[in-house]
Each structure stands twice: as structure tokens, then as C-alpha cells.
């Protein structure tokens, strides 16, 4: 039924620098980067993508670097899971990495691939949103930075132009806790039905900064600024509990989900407040 890509008809390139990779991508309109391949190869097998050239990013210098404020596009979920810094600084992201696929997938799946595949359900998207990540993009002309919120333009679509590559995401040092929650239909290996990430920075007993993001609830992962606003400035205690409930409702209002074989839009919309309040509650010390 499916039509298999004939490997003999595909050009395979393996650049070793960003500049070479950008050049490689420009050799053909049908060129496509490949990182872990855990999205791309499935799409190729199902005939949804038919690249004539694949540009393997695995040897590109610096792409897999992980530092205190930078996650290279080539960093795998397994790397994140092994990183003490990630666990301490970005708990929501590490939780998302733990939920993404199974062990084998985690070994191959990269942050860059997850973001560039641009699924509204992409596991790493909402955690990176609540950590105020910026996408670093290299292209034929220049290197540019785009706030992650503006990185996606629709399901499966990013702002990357021809020949452009996601190089890394950078994250400002943030304080406070973050958390990630999702609804899945199966506990072993599944795609999120809906997801939510949250971060609260609490200073002197009150919320200094709040972030709320929702996944699989709209054409792209998105932040819910209205929900963040009701939380900021609120003192920890009953007021915060009330504000969390309010934020959860506002997050529900921000949903424009779809009906599909996994869930109805109605269920997705109803689950967002549940997840948002759980994620927020987990951020309160």
C-alpha cells in the first residue's frame, strides 16, 4: 500500500560544518535534513515525504553540544536524560524527554528534529516555551534568532526558509521550578493527546514570573499569556490556588484543538485545564 523510497535514487550527504550543511541543503529543492530520522523515515515510508537528497546532520560540528544555556539541535533525548544540569535547570524538558517514545527512540530522537517536525504535540515544545527558549537558525545569508513562540507557523510548518537549519535553542538562566504533564492513551510509547508545561518563579513568597504553555491543543504549541498574567504577583497559599484554577480555565479557553482518532476536540479542551493546574501545582514548592 505504502510506497517505499528507492534508496538508490536518493542522494546522501554528510556535511561536517554548519556552512557545508547549508550548502548541501541548497543543492536541491527536494533536500531535507535528517537528524535521528525517527520522524523523517516514518514519513518517507508512508509516502508523505519524498526527499531526493538527505543531509545527515550527525557529523555537523557543534550541533550536539549541550551547555548551561544552550541545547544544540542534535542533542538527543537520551543526552538530556543523562544531564544533571538539565534535570536541575529544566525539569519540564527532562520529564518530556522521558515520555518521548521508548528507549530506542530516545537514543535517536533529537531536540532539533522534534521542534522542526513541528507537530502540535511535540514533546519538547511546551517545556522549551516555558523556559523562554530562542531558536538559533543558520541560513545561506546569515544567522538569525527567533523566539520559539514564533518558530512554528502551523502543523508541520516552521519559519525555516530554504537552506535554513535550526542550530540550537538558547535558554536564559531562569529560576524556579518547571513541570510537564500530558494525557496519553497508553503508558508505553505514545504521542500526547494534549500536554501542558508550566514554570513558576517564586520570590519572597509570591510569584515573580509565570509561564504556561499548551501542546496538541492548537495548530502549534503555544504560550497562554493570559494565564500567566493571573498568576504573576500572587502570594503562595490559597490565593495562588485560586489563581491556578483561574489560569487553568484561561488555558482551556485558549484551546482550538482538532477531532481525530486519538480524541475529540471536546476532550482535549476539557483536559487542558486539568493538566495546566497539575503542572502549576507541581511548580509550587
Amino acid at each position: 500500500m505504502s510506497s517505499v523510497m528507492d534508496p538508490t535514487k536518493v542522494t546522501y550527504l554528510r556535511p561536517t560544518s554548519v556552512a557545508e550543511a547549508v550548502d548541501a541543503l541548497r543543492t536541491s529543492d527536494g533536500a531535507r535534513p535528517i537528524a535521528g530520522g525517527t520522524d523523517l523515515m516514518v514519513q518517507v515510508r508512508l509516502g508523505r515525504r519524498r526527499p531526493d537528497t538527505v543531509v545527515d546532520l550527525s557529523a555537523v560540528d557543534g550541533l550536539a553540544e549541550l551547555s548551561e544555556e544552550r541545547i544544540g539541535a542534535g542533542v538527543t533525548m537520551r543526552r538530556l536524560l543523562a544531564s544533571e544540569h538539565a534535570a536541575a535547570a529544566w525539569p519540564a524538558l527532562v520529564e518530556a524527554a522521558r515520555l518521548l517514545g521508548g528507549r530506542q527512540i530516545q537514543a535517536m530522537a533529537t531536540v532539533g528534529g522534534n521542534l522542526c517536525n513541528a507537530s502540535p504535540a511535540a514533546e519538547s515544545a511546551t517545556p522549551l516555551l516555558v523556559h523562554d527558549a530562542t531558536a538559533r537558525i543558520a541560513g545561506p545569508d546569515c544567522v538569525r534568532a527567533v523566539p520559539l513562540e514564533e518558530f512554528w507557523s502551523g502543523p508541520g510548518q516552521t519559519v525555516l526558509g530554504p537552506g535554513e537549519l535550526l542550530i540550537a535553542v538558547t535558554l536564559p538562566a531562569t529560576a524556579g521550578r518547571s513541570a510537564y504533564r500530558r494525557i496519553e492513551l497508553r503508558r508505553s510509547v505514545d504521542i500526547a493527546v494534549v500536554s501542558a508545561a508550566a514554570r513558576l518563579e517564586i520570590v519572597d513568597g509570591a510569584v515573580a514570573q509565570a509561564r504556561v504553555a499548551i501542546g496538541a491543543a492548537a495548530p502549534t504549541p503555544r504560550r497562554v499569556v493570559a494565564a500567566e498574567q493571573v498568576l504573576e504577583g500572587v502570594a503562595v497559599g490559597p490565593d495562588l490556588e485560586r489563581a491556578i484554577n483561574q489560569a487553568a480555565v484561561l488555558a482551556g479557553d485558549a484551546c482550538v484543538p482538532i477531532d481525530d482518532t486519538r480524541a475529540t476536540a471536546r476532550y482535549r479542551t476539557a483536559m487542558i485545564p486539568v493538566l495546566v493546574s497539575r503542572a502549576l501545582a507541581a511548580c509550587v514548592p
Partner: protein
Amino acid sequence: MTGIAPRWIGQGIAQTDMRDKLTGAADYVGDLTVPRMLHAAIVRSEVAHGIIRSIDTSRAERVPGVRAVLTGADTPSIPFGPYVPDWRILAEDKVRYIGDEIAAIAATSPEAAREAAALIEVDIEPLPAVFDPFEALAPDTPPIWDERPDNVANAFAIDRGDLEAGWAAADLVVEGEFTTNRIYHGYLEPIGVLAEAHPNGRYTLTVPTHIPYKARITYASALGIPLDHIRMVVPPIGGSFGAKYEMLEPLIVACLSRAAGAPVRLVYDREEDAAIARPRPPFHFQHRIGVTAEGRFVARETEVTGIAGARVFWSPAILATAVHRVDSLYHFGSMQGSGRLAYTNEPPTTAMRGFGNAEALFGIEQLIDEIAERLDHDPIELRRRNAAKAGERTMHGWLISSSELPACLDRARELSGYPQRRALVEGTRGRTGIRRGMGMAIAHHVSGYKPILKDFDGSSAIVRLGGDGRVSLFVGEPDLGQGQVTILSQIVAEGLGCAPNDVQVQGVDSAMSPDAVGTLASRATTMAGMAAVEATRAARERLTAFIASGWQVDASELEWDGPKVTHAVSGRSSTLADAAHDYQVVHCGLPLLGEGVHRPDTEDLDAEKYGNPSVAYPFAAHVAEVEVDCDTGQARVIGYWAVHDSGTILNPSTARSQVLGAIAQGVGWSLMEDVDIVDGAVRNPSFLDYRIPGAGDMPARTVVEFVEGYEPNGPHGAKSLAEAAINPTIAAVANAIHDATGVRPRHVPIAPERLWEALQEDAS
């Protein structure tokens, strides 16, 4: 029984074919290549119902590598089918479901075949399609098959006892509607076939079917040729669970091979396999049970409506099971049951492990819990009291030759702590937050079922002891991966004194294996096992007699100890292998053969469907513990206790695997598995969205136990196991969810969204 402790029976030895399967040495259909072999692809309807106006194959024929292109006009046009002659090799004038086979290609590569398939242009005039069984059966709905204007694919009715008196005696009547869904079998090996049409008009079909001889009858009638013109060869089967009974694909590929003049192989990929999957038929049940204040069942009524799909595969037998099998688990006093299967414009449905019994129990076992609750009876004692007991004949004449169900109930209670433990958490029942609950269900099944193919109700077996010392066993029941070859090896080894690994259980090949109904109705271990016991005994006796005459001693003075034989008086001794060698030399090359015929003591059902169709009935009591997140509707099975009576456990390791597998399938069925069909199209034909449970979904605590039992009609006291093991699962989980939340699950799967909806409704 000799009284000597068995050497191999009851040993949990590793499966004898496991090494080959794990190392890739086992050759499944997809591994087989033969010279000049071509590859097949099938063109399917994308319309649920319509008239074929034209098919243009010209572009497909020009694709390089294409060797044959067939449409309905090129294949024999003899209506056929296992139950109803509504099968065609390729669609003739109409298509009746999305996926209906319209044309087929054979080409030198799978890619060329697929490319050609995509170039076939089919012009279809759409007709109104029907997807709902009740709508299909409604008076004015246009028929899918002109031969059946009412869209009734099959009907089944049965009644017994004085129902009026039963209802009159009832102090309490419980009733309810329940539905069960389509389940994809989810075997590892997608469907495949290798067909070779020989110039002399004969065929060799290499098909992973578990009922090769029954399938051959269907195939011969479709091709209009005598039975013996088809040789059926069964390769290793990578799982089936009922899907690979009689498939249509071998006929399409046989015709392609005839047209192309070369062997042709077809192997589905997962998406095609899952999209055209012939799943478990979905059923709608209306159940009603009457009970006295003391807790004695006195009346039962059931009305079952199911979906056959656009063609009838094995759904009629499943319907009959769903209507009346439970009457041999419990005494209901009197009953009336009826069932109908609707034609719809959807993929045909067929057999799957549990075969209608699990489906019926889903509702019945929930209603029994409701009775226990309303009468304030212990749910275990209520079941014990009404269950059929060893030595009894049930209302339809089924003879319970052995039952340790009472012991199963006792052990299930002891191991799980149900229902005392349930009482402890009673206060936690509710509709918000995280809730826990426990539920139980019991079940039984058959070990063979005579009405399926009366010609070969029993089984036969041939043991071949070669001059090289090799032992082979030939039976007509293929192994599907469930471990039956291991058990048969143990049986032969036990009787001959060799080791199980010395015994090769041969794959079924109609050129040399005995005929049989095959592996279905939980019959293989019991039936083929009994035949193997007989054949082994015959081989041993023949060999002993041969040695005795050679040594000029009395056979009764020969004593076997393992593979060694000794003459007690003279001390002279030999071995199995040496004696087998001598036997062959003396017999001019003929290996020593032992034949076994097992003719079970079952009965033909009379006109009222009364009689005992199975030699034995296995029993099970299961308890499930669940945790429900009421805010999201997500339920998890966190504990599971399964206690079984399958008589003697021939191999505790494979038996345990069967029960664990059944629990996994039961967890999947009750919580997540569902073939999602909308307007006739399968929306989730892949393991991404057809979810089977993974390790993380299995209960952290799983206890499997077998109570001691002995079935007089089975090999070494054994009876069937694997279907009885899935039968209580979905009901046990449903009862546990009710215990946790107070919500009565009416449908499977009890998926998060559905449970959440129910919690919302009940809360408001």
C-alpha cells in the same frame, strides 16, 4: 497411568522452536524465496459501496516487470465461502467495502507491483452505504447482497427450559445493554502467502493458516478443482489469534501464479494488514437475568446483534458462542437467546481468541456483580453457587467432565484478598481524584467443538522413528507460536523415553500430515495431544514387539528406562536409536511408524442444538485491581490475579506465558484497543494509533496460578487454556472500574475519553 513419575510432562522446559525463532533461522512466508518468484500487489476499493463501471488496466500492464494483471473477469466466478457463498476471488460487478479486492498484479519486484497497482483506473458509481448494524437490519435499507434483502448475514436462536416459570420465580431481574468492539489481532507477522500454480493444473499453497484442511475445502471450491489438486504447506506462523483461519489472499495469489506461470508471493506491510484486518466482530448485547432472593439464577434472556461486514468469514460461529456458551458456565434455569449478524459496508470480521465467549461475559459478569450488590451477597459465593459443577450436564447438554472452579475461586480470593480488601477501600469509591477498585470475573471455554467440521472431530497423529534415531511427529494441527510443538514434543518424549529436543514436530503439509480440523476452538493440545499419546504408545509397542521377537523373549519382560531397554531376565539391553536402526534394516528401509487415532466421546447436537460438543471445559477465576484518574478518565490495571483449572499443566512455563499474554490482550482490549472505523474506513491502521499495551501498561503485580486438576478426556489429564485465559479479562477490569468509580462500563475499550464522559454524566 503407570504410576511412574513423569519425566517430561509437567516440566517447564523452554519452547523447542524458540532458538530458531529468536535467531531468525525460522523461515516465515516473508523469508521464503523460490526461483522465478514474483511479487503481488492488490488494488482495493476506496469506495464503501458501488457498482464497478469499468477497470482500465492498460497503464499497469505497461509497467516494466509486470507479469500478470487480473480483475474479477479473469478469475473463476464461483460463489464460495466458509459459511455463506458471498466470497469472490476478485470483485465482479460491485464493491462492498473500502478495501474490497478489485484487481491484482504480479511483478518482478514489490515496487513494480505497487507502482502498477497505483496505475489501475477503476470507475465506480457509488451506492448508498450502511455502517450501522441496526440501520442495516431496518426494513427499508437497501441490501448489500441481493440474495439477502434483509441484510441478515446469519441468525442464531436457541431456547431451553420453562422461561415463563423462570421469570415468575425471579425476585430480582437485572438487565443491561453492553457493546464490544472490533479488535485487531496485532500478531507480529502480517498476512502473507506463497502460491505456485503447477502446469498440470495443481497448486502448492504455502499459507500460514491454522486450519489448512478446512481452508483447502474452501479454496478447492473457489477454484472449481478437486481437493487433492491443492497441496497446503504451513510454514512457521508468527501469531494469528484467529485471523489466519481461511484467508482470501491465497486464492488471489494462486490465480496470479496461474496467469503469470511463475510462483508468486504476497506479504502485507503493517498498514495494509491492519487496514483490511478482519477483526473480532463487534457485538451489541441486551442481557437480562432473573434471580431468586436466595441468589439462585432462574431465567436468562439475551439478544445479540453483531457485524459480519461485507462478507461472511467466521462470524456466525462467534455469534452462536456469544448467544449461548455461557449456559455451560452457570445454570440459569431457563433461557432464550437470539442473535443476528448484519451485513454492513465494512471489512469482514472474523475469529479471535475468546470467540464470542469473552464478549458475552463482559456484560453477564457485570450483571452478576450487580446482583451480588443488590442482594448483598458475596460476589464469589454467588458465582460458586450458580456455576456448573464437575459431573453435571448443563441445560444444552454440555457435559462438565472436570471442573476445579471452586478451588480457583478459593485461591483467587486468598491470593488477591478480594473482596475483603475491597471492603477496606470501600470508602474510597468516588468520581473525583484518584480511585482504586477491585473486580472479579470467571470464565470457561471448550477444548474442541464438534459441530465445526464433523468429519474430523478428533485427531490423528503419526510418530516416525527413523533409522537414524530421529523422531518426528506429524499432526494436522499447526502451531501458531503458542508453544504447542513444545508440548507435543514433551508428550512424545514422555512416551518414547527420548528428550523433547529429539522430537521434531513437523509443520503441517497436506502431502504427508494427517487431515484435521486444525488449531481452533482451543482443541490442539487436547486433541492432537491425545492422538500423539496414542501414536507414541503404538510406536513404543511396535518397537518393543520387534525387539522381543529379535531376542526371542517375551515382550512383557522388556523394561524401558528412558531411551534404554533391558531384558530383565538376561540383562541384555539396547537403545531406542539402535533398535530403530535395526527395525529399519529388517524392514527394507521402512522407518518405524506409530499411528494414533483419537476419537473423542463427543455428541452430535440434535435438532434443538442439544448434546455435548466438547470433550472438556477449562475454568478460570480472575481478579483485577485498577486505579482510575477521575479527572482524566485514565484507568490503569495495577494488580491482576489469574487462577486456572486446565487439568494437568503439561508445561508450566508455556502455560504461564499463555495467561500473561491473555492478561496483556485483556488489558489492551479493556482500556485501549479499538479498530476505529468511520464511514467504512479504518482510521488507525498502524501500531501508532492502534494501541496494544506495552510493558508500562501491564499491572505491576501479576499473579498466575494453576490449581491441581485432572481431566479424564485429555492427554495426561490436560485440557485447554489459552482462550479461557482471555475470557474473564475485560469483565474483571470493568467490574474493578465500577468498584472504583460507581460507573458501570457498557462499552469496551474503557478508554480515557469514554470513561471521563461517563464520569461526567453520572456526576451531573
